[in-house]
């Protein structure tokens, strides 16, 4: 099939960026979107041009590395599908695909379709864990969890941290992601002891990152490849209000977002260089 890929090209953070159109004459309908970019990149390399940078790892929809906008929809038009799992047969012959990166202040541009999503890591580090004693493994079934509860926790835990929810949100809010990371722990008895501090800390970090405020619009759920439901946002709000009310925790502190890249070297290397 024939496709025109209109792709956002940006050499680095200091570059303003622009769209470049690439005509592809022989796209295999069974290829994934990422494989289509691979094919394009090979032809670009052969022509001596810079290949399109995009993130990927598992290519089976579970790692959360991949993701970009296709025609205004995060991960493209197919519901519950990451771009690595999206096959080209879902597009019409001769279609133009507008491909651009997630756009949010909390996701600074790195290069082409790659954005810096470390803000998500910092939100998780602020409280997305439970404390367990080390030593012997605990007895199985020592803590009883009902099927309904475990299902809801598992549904929230399905979040792969791709960032499509932020990309889809008109407010660039990360409420769905943060909600999922809070809910999958707070729904379970194992997450109960740290419940009051968790939401306070994670919400504080989320705000420190410069994400927008949630207005319960629901675009995030529609774009989410794991179909995380809006209920997780309510769970976050409930835990946040409960935690604020109880004021159980000591001071809530946030970490200052780091936007530079560590090169791991004492040599003077430009931290913005990407290759």
């Amino acid at each position, binding site marked *: 099939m024939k496709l025109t890929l209109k792709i956002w090209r940006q050499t680095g953070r200091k570059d303003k960026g622009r769209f470049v159109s690439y005509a592809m004459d022989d796209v295999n309908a069974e290829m994934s979107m990422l494989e289509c970019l691979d094919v394009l990149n090979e032809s670009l390399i052969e022509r001596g041009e810079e290949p399109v940078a995009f993130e990927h790892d598992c290519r089976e929809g579970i790692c959360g590395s991949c993701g970009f906008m296709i025609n205004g929809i995060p991960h493209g038009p197919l519901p519950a599908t990451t771009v690595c799992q999206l096959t080209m047969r879902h597009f019409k012959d001769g279609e133009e695909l507008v491909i651009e990166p997630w756009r949010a*202040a909390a996701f600074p541009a790195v290069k082409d379709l790659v954005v810096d999503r470390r803000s998500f890591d910092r939100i998780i580090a602020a409280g997305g864990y439970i404390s367990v004693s080390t030593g012997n493994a605990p007895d199985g079934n020592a803590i009883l969890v009902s099927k309904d509860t475990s299902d809801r926790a598992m549904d929230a835990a399905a979040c792969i941290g791709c960032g499509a929810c932020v990309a889809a949100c008109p407010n660039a809010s990360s409420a769905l992601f943060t909600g999922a990371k809070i809910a999958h722990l707070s729904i379970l008895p194992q997450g109960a002891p740290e419940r009051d501090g968790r939401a306070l800390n994670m919400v504080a970090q989320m705000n420190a990152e410069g994400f927008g405020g949630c207005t319960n619009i629901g675009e995030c759920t529609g774009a989410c490849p794991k179909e995380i439901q809006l209920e997780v946002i309510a769970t976050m709000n409930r835990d946040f209000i409960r935690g604020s009310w109880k004021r159980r925790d000591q001071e809530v502190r946030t970490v200052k977002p780091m936007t530079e890249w560590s090169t791991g070297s004492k040599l003077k290397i430009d931290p913005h260089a990407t290759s």
Partner: protein
Amino acid sequence: MSTSAVGVREEERAPGFWGSTNGKKAVMAVTGAILFIFVIGHLAGNLQVFEGPAKLNAYGKLLHTLGELLWPVRIVLLLCVTLHITATVQLALLKKRARPVGYSAKKAIASSYSSRTMYWSGPIVLAFVIFHLLHLTAGYYHPGAAFIEGDVYHNVVSGFQVWWVSVWYIFSVILLGLHLRHGIWSMFQSLGMNHPRHTPILKSTAWVVAVTIVLGYISIPISVMLGVVK
């Protein structure tokens, strides 16, 4: 290249409840709920226009004889409006900052029209409320006929006989309906009350309540314009 370093351990004190987006939304939900209750009470009072001048004027008088209670209620409402709007403005500014570079193409795939237009319906309702207060509460601006202090029935009927006043009223009430169609559901979500089983019920209830409120309010100017109430 190491990507393991994610944060500078230069810790900062976190902002408090009001300083966070979630806290602001909780405040919006509570103030919105109070305003919503007022909107219902106000409707119940207004519908007495269909029972004739005596009844409505007596109701107006009753409100004014509440005396000590009238101003506390007004102050609570004013406080709610102020907080609601302050949060609106701050979240709107944050929204602008949170996406400095926009998309060249963006499709809405899962949201309702009313939810996407909250930042339009709210301010227009505000403009309407100011007009409405000048028009029927203070009588400062009352085209068509003289404003008579205390004769609520006369003020309402002669006010709505001016066609553009009625049209503006109907338009604003429909926007209020849109605002509530999303808001009634959204405030539960903001306060953390949500469950897969309750959400669909809540959403359809919000629809029904919003439509009822709109129909109730616009029945008054429509009846006046049709000459049913005169």
